[in-house]
């Protein structure tokens, strides 16, 4: 009993005895993978067979082979390695399988990455790839066809389909006369004919076709949501739906925390995206798992970050759902810090896709945007939450044009270099042109609740909220500074001090809050005047 009958079930760690116990060979891609796992001798044997096969695949030299036959042989060897990988890993935990699967993928990629471009092109052509000469346009970088041909990647994967789609897109460009790629259609056709030694199978058109436009039923949905509400029950349902929409917006937003709490958050950097380049933003994770984005404000030395943070506070105080933004110093720079929301998507710029609740939410957020002087609200500065709500996200230009901006259908200080119109202007324009979904309209009364909430904030409280914007803005002479210097001069009758300029800014902000109702009354009169006129004409 116990004299060795258990030997077949004996377990031991693979990692310390790699050399003779089924570990990876000491060269190539497999060498980096050293799974630490507890396995039986049978498993060790299976792993040995896998590593041996993978080494053979990895060391295959495709140069000089016939692309068609060579690729078929590679596929066969890869399939055998995959089968051995399965045999060696099927009883392991996913975390233990993963290194072996990665080794399999890299091992099968190795010979393809070393193959010359013409070989890859001919092999891809034999596998049904259309226009293989139109990807991998620059030498000395990883060839997309080496990825596309890797037998361990699924043939229908989106990444493979994207490579094929790009080649087709470039071919269409060339066929329509583009010279951007340095090759004419005739030259391309000649190159492809030279490449097409074997018969070319039917093209994989299904994987290359662009997907159908999304949200095709959005207009219908928007119209459905906007059906006339006449009965008491219908009105009640409309109120419930409006609350659900608001709740969908609010519930997606992480709760606002105190500045002290955010300042003390122990944030761990999260890996940057895989592409190269210098990222102005950095991503972090808090101990509770929440994800955060930090934007250093190097140009305005924190003044823009203060403006953005205060704008988000003002908006949420007014009842407009918005992402909380905080000022924080990280890595020696002051900037803005905000939580990220997974599962949301940018708002479509198609105004016909907006429901009545969406339109009401946009009107409400317009009140807040005007109060904080944010004229940069494009559709993609608004998130559609997973529950269908709307959340504005970027107040980076808050207060920028304070003192010289206007509440009007035409005012757009970003016209020269950013976008033609704000989301609000697009919405009102669509309303005026009858281009919202059927039954959906701009309802001025939607703005009233937000206006009332701002009116309820005392002037002194509002000054206190905006004090950091005034202080930092004067200190850094941000874009609104000259307008406030003029205002302070006019008030004082002489050269203003920094305090005078900051006071002028706060006076201007309080004035705007006090005139919010009158301002929007006049604005909506402007929005509805042309419509009223045309209606009158039609009736007459």
């Amino acid at each position, binding site marked *: 009993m116990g004299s060795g009958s258990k030997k077949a079930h004996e377990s031991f760690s693979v990692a310390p005895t790699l050399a003779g116990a089924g570990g990876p060979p000491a060269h190539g891609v497999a060498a980096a993978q050293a799974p630490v796992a507890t396995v039986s001798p049978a498993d060790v044997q299976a792993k040995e067979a896998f590593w041996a096969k993978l080494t053979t695949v990895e060391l295959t030299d495709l140069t000089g082979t016939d692309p068609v036959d060579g690729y078929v042989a590679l596929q066969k060897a890869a399939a055998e390695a995959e089968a051995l990988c399965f045999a060696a890993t099927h009883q392991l935990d996913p975390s233990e399988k993963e290194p072996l699967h990665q080794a399999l993928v890299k091992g099968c990629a190795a010979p393809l990455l070393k193959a010359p471009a013409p070989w890859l092109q001919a092999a891809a052509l034999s596998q049904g790839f259309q226009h293989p000469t139109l990807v991998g346009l*620059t030498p000395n970088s990883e060839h997309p066809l080496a990825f596309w041909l890797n037998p361990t990647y699924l043939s229908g994967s989106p990444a493979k389909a994207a490579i094929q789609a790009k080649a087709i897109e470039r071919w269409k460009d060339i066929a329509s006369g583009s010279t951007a790629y340095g090759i004419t259609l005739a030259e391309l056709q000649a190159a492809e004919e030279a490449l097409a030694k074997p018969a070319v199978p039917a093209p994989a058109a299904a994987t290359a076709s662009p997907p159908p436009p999304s949200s095709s039923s959005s207009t219908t949905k928007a119209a459905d949501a906007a059906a006339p509400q006449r009965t008491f029950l219908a009105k009640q349902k409309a109120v419930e739906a409006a609350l659900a929409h608001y709740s969908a917006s609010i519930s997606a937003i992480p709760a606002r925390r105190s500045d002290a709490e955010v300042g003390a958050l122990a944030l761990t950097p999260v890996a940057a995206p895989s592409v190269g380049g210098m990222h102005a*933003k950095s991503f972090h994770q808090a101990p509770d798992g929440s994800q955060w984005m930090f934007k250093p404000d190097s140009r305005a030395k924190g003044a823009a970050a203060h403006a953005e943070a205060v704008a988000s506070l003002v908006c949420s105080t007014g009842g407009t759902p918005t992402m909380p933004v905080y000022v924080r110093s990280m890595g020696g720079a002051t900037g803005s810090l905000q939580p990220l929301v997974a599962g949301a998507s940018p708002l479509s710029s198609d105004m016909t896709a907006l429901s009545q609740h969406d339109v009401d939410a946009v009107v409400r957020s317009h009140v807040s945007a005007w109060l904080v002087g944010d004229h940069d609200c494009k559709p993609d500065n608004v998130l559609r939450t997973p529950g269908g709500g709307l959340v504005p*996200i970027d107040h980076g230009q808050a207060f920028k044009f304070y003192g010289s901006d206007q509440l009007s259908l035409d005012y757009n200080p970003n016209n020269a270099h950013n976008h033609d119109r704000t989301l609000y202007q697009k919405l009102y324009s669509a309303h005026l042109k009858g281009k919202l979904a059927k039954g959906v309209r701009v309802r001025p009364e939607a703005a009233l609740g937000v206006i009332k909430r701002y009116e309820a904030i005392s002037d002194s409280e509002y000054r206190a909220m905006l004090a950091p914007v005034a202080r930092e803005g004067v200190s850094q002479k941000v874009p609104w500074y000259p307008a406030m210097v003029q205002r302070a001069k006019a008030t004082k009758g002489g050269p203003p001090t920094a305090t005078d300029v900051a006071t002028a800014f706060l006076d201007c902000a309080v004035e705007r809050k006090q005139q919010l109702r009158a301002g929007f009354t006049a604005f909506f009169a402007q929005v509805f005047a042309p419509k009223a006129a045309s209606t009158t004409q039609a009736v007459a």
Partner: protein
Amino acid sequence: MRRRCFYLMGHGPTGAAVRVVGALGIEGPSAGAQWESHFSWIPLLEELDMQGWREDLERARGAGALDEDLVEHWVETANGITRDITEVESPEAPSLALAVEALVDLALVS
């Protein structure tokens, strides 16, 4: 004359704009202070994730305003959630278009 290349990024599943949706290159200024530009998109992505970039680039190109100042403005103001832009080393290529397409090729296998 200088050539500058950028990756354009759109909204991704993590809630940040870290998904490469396209590449942009500018080259100039020429003797007439003109800037040449070329941009190219990663195929088969959700249109909403690239909508903002597509609209802005096409509008700027249509207005003949796609120059270094505009691109630097975008670098400065991109919100990082629905859009971002990051400068990368320009690949060696005989033309601006081929440099941009090379960046797209690289993104296709990343």
